[in-house]
């Protein structure tokens, strides 16, 4: 029998990894990968809490996880399109050089 907190620890570790990637990387694609890691960590928590709840007859946990997956797909498509568009205009996707709006 696997305790619930083992899943939560794995999810917490993945979230911390994604957080570091989103905060510290310079490449916009690497930042996007960090965000994907964080979304996956949240999904693990949703499914784990669904599985260990007494009322798993209602499938809300899995429904929410599926919605997060669909949203992540939309986010990745738009994000990568933005990155390619920026690369075409500026010839870089280093987020530190994209400072046109910096005051």
């Amino acid at each position, binding site marked *: *029998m*696997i305790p*619930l*907190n083992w899943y*939560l*620890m*794995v999810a*917490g*570790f*993945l*979230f*911390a*990894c994604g*957080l*570091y*990637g989103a*905060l*510290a*990387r*310079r*490449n916009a*694609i*690497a930042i996007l*990968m960090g965000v*994907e*890691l964080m979304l*996956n960590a949240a*999904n*693990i928590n949703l499914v*784990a809490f*669904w*599985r*260990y709840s*007494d009322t*798993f007859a*209602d*499938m*809300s946990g*899995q*429904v929410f*996880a*599926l*919605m997060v*997956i*669909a949203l992540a*797909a*939309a986010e*990745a*498509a*738009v994000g*990568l*399109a933005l*990155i*390619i*568009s920026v*690369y075409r205009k500026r*010839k870089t*996707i*280093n987020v*530190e050089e994209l400072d046109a709006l910096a005051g």
Partner: protein
Amino acid sequence: MPELPIPSVGQLVFAAVALFTAISGLIVVASPNLFHNALALVATLFGVAGLYILLEAEFLAVSQVLVYVGAIATLITFAIMLTRSMMYGRTSPVNRQWGKAAIFAVLFFAVLLGFVQGIPWVSNMAELPSSQETIVALGMEFVTTYVVAFEVLGLLLLVALVGAVMLARDN
């Protein structure tokens, strides 16, 4: 864990999958080579699908492999290949605040660990009905309780698709 009982087969399988997921998740953010990051991301997504199977959410595991590994990882690989001209070798992969970000991430993980260990979670999984019934119940939820969210999600995907084509179009 207070005392260490003899691990069961399920626990050993969980430990293997969790270790695989965690190590490849670390490579995603720690390796300086963007292409290695993308490959490790694929491994991490497979590991998460494995965790879903251990949680008896088979439909979700299949969706994870189809959507994440099949679509998102491919998209990311394409984007890397379309934009990789000067990002190799010349500059550091991390920005100036990476030290602070690392400390913050470690502290965040420590706080999460403290919370998770401090709460007495339920540890008994109830017996699930057959996976076929689970999937039927999932489908019913989507077309009854969550039908509005489901339709809005479909609209959002359409808008995102059109928007992505508009943004990436070469004009």
